[in-house]
């Protein structure tokens, strides 16, 4: 009986920053043992500068205080790297490459999100590691995929939104295209890549042979806008931004509420919901206009409805209004700020958040958990994100089985170290 879905699976995690760590964190919540391979010279940038200065850099530390070892205290690093073992390894050196191969030999899977050619240039790409461990499943999370003329182009979540088509359909009506500023392709890729890796594991188990799982973030992003893509393929129409509306709901939009920058999203998707909304509004004269009884009529008068609604919603607290509308069967959602999301009643009741005090932070913080609740693989309290090289002894001596002499020699050569040696800026 497995207590969690991926118990017994060992994953070598070379990921950094966002998309990769999302994936490997979610894999660890399913019970996989995740060994995060870090570098003393080129760390995960979410570890921050060795001596951070300036408003932008200090923002990520608790209360903006970097503390004694800032590289263990950053918000993003702590959120995305819970439950992982951290080892350091300089695999730009030949001796380091040999160690990486030995680690790959004892793992079921490897995950990385470097630019396409990086691992190949290190002599540690898919073909090489497949020869070292023929059963290894190699999940490659790249911007554009493992092949193609743009395979070596760099990206961030924000550029993927652009090159993946999402930005072209995001924007205020009659306005310019806009990015989401949430680097949306990163977390979504992290979530879907869990299923992708497991597909690879299942194939490897059946055939006895490992495989490369070639995940293109750009292709994933294009897959988030199929209605617009198919509209072009079938109808030759190039869709652009439509603001907060869609083709069916009317009215739909984001309306101002009481307080500073407080909003509510409302979506009326049927005539019955429109009637319900009118009742909550108190059947004011303007709502009784018979031309508004049908969706077509409401779509035609959408601007006027929006203007009236905005006047009305301003008098309400956004949560209060959400409950009033939802209790009458009208889809509505308070637009939650981060601080509100942290204490939302539904998420609290479901016990969705994780409260954890990372030791070098010394204070409890609230962290996201998983987008699923599995009855036979429940979420367990995480161990905090590791300090740099925290598990070098455990992994190198106990798991990999290096002799003490070998281990000492690698440390003396600087291949393994817990000292942060990256440049300051």
């Amino acid at each position, binding site marked *: 009986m497995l207590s969690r*879905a991926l118990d017994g699976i060992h994953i070598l995690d070379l990921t950094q920053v966002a998309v990769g760590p999302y994936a490997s964190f979610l894999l660890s919540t399913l019970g996989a043992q995740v060994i995060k391979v870090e570098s003393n010279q080129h760390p995960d940038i979410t570890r921050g500068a060795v001596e951070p200065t300036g408003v932008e850099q200090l923002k990520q530390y608790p209360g903006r205080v970097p503390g004694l070892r800032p590289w263990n205290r950053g918000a993003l690093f702590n959120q995305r790297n819970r439950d992982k073992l951290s080892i350091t390894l300089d695999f730009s050196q030949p001796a380091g490459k040999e160690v990486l191969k030995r680690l790959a030999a004892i793992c079921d899977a490897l995950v990385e999100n470097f630019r396409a050619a990086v691992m190949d240039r290190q002599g540690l790409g898919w073909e090489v590691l497949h020869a070292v461990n023929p059963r290894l499943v190699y999940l490659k999370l790249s911007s554009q995929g493992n092949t193609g003329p743009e395979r070596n182009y760099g990206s961030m979540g924000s550029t993927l939104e652009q090159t993946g088509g999402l*930005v072209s359909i995001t924007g205020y009506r009659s306005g310019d295209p806009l990015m989401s500023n949430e680097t949306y392709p990163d977390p979504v890729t992290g979530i879907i890549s869990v299923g992708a890796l497991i597909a690879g594991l*299942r194939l490897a188990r*059946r055939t006895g042979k490992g495989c490369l799982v070639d995940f*293109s973030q750009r292709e994933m992003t294009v897959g988030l806008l199929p209605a617009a893509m198919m509209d072009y393929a079938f109808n030759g129409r190039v869709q652009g931004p439509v603001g907060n509306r869609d083709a069916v709901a009317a009215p739909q939009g984001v309306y101002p509420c009481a307080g500073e920058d407080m909003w509510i999203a409302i979506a009326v998707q049927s005539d019955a919901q429109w009637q319900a909304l009118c009742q909550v509004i108190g059947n004011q004269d303007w709502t009784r206009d018979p031309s508004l009884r049908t969706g077509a009529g409401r779509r035609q008068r959408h601007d006027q409805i929006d203007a009236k609604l905005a006047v009305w919603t301003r008098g309400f607290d956004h949560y209060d209004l959400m409950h009033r509308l939802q209790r009458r069967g009208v889809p*509505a*959602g308070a637009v939650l700020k981060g601080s509100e999301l942290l204490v939302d009643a*539904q998420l609290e009741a479901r016990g969705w958040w994780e409260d954890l005090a990372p030791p070098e932070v010394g204070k409890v913080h609230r962290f996201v958990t998983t987008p699923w609740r*599995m009855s036979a693989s429940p979420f367990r309290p995480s161990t905090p994100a590791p300090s740099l090289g925290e598990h070098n002894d455990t992994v190198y001596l106990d798991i990999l089985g290096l002799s003490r002499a070998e281990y000492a020699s690698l440390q003396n050569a600087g291949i393994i170290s817990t000292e942060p040696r990256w440049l300051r800026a």
Partner: protein
Amino acid sequence: MADTERILGDITVLELSHDIPGAYCGKLLAGLGARVIKVEPPNGEGDRDMPPFAGDVHHRERSLPFLYLNTAKQSVTLDLALREGQQILRRMVAGADVIVESFAPGILAKWGLDYTTLSSLNPTLVMTSITAFGQDGPYRDYLINEIVAAAIGGLLYTMGLPEREPLKIGGDAVLYNAGGSAFSAVMAAIWQRDVTGSGQFIDISIQEATATSQIHSSIEASWIYSNPGRRSSVLLEAKDGWVAVGVESGVSAETWPRLCDIMDRPELADDPRFATTFARRDHREELKAVVSDWVRMQSKEEVYHLLQGLRSIAGYVATTADLYRSPQLVERDFFQMIDHPVAGPASYPGFPFRVGDQPWMQIRAPLLGEHNEAIYAGVLGYSQQELHRLHEKGVI
């Protein structure tokens, strides 16, 4: 390739879903070789009414989102509100491995089709329920859609411009993320079942899937007690569209001077306002002004390729038309030509990942009830007379 050679070739899925999340989960499973049977009401699933339509003709076989979401699936019709429909479903469950459903909490229980009942018939069953807010809690009976999910999931607030109302991501990206979440959870449950022989219940809350995908609002609020807000756009207008140049992020030391040469402004290479990454971030607005004069005269794809060549992380705002002719997507065979008896042939976007050499199952979406014969007669053994009677009574 024989079905059994496909990654999920041994898996049968019953899909009882309306709207995007369940259908997208089912699409990915079908793509990996699972036999996915869409169980639709006799008048067709709600997704068949989603616009846009092929040729702009509103018809239940012409919905473009439906055609995309339901590739490689089978379709049977069944009225689950009727006792006899529920009985038939229970018979189908005996031979199924996975159920993906998105009824409001409590509906399937009312019909004797909840996990407790079905797992007693089939203990290996993996059942995934995708709902607005999950199976319990104070918002359990609330309704959700794309924009409401973005709002109550903590994603919407930071999107859009500072001086305006929050703005949703275009299309249905948030609902697709919920579908992707269900897919990954189902894969994990299948893997676990491969080892233990037991199924389980998976509870997907669209609010929680969305809250998982907001990457900095909650952590910043928790860590530094302030809420990130909306920011102005960094996109610059080119001759034929929009780009992001990327020089305000980390670039190699030679990138900025080389760009200055290309822009024919070599004097800017030594300008202290732009000399380092941090300097460029601090002088963002001035940088924007200087670079946008040049960008305005170029085509967006030229800017993209040129700057990527200089190792700057640049992007261009690709439209759907641009994507269909992108050399990168075309060379990777990302698009697949699929024909359909009513909607006709067209080029469909493909899948987010490739597993080894395994091709994805990319065949057309089913017509309504197309597989009633094959499944009710062929698998469950109903005679033609019985099928006729069931149809007359509105059960199928």
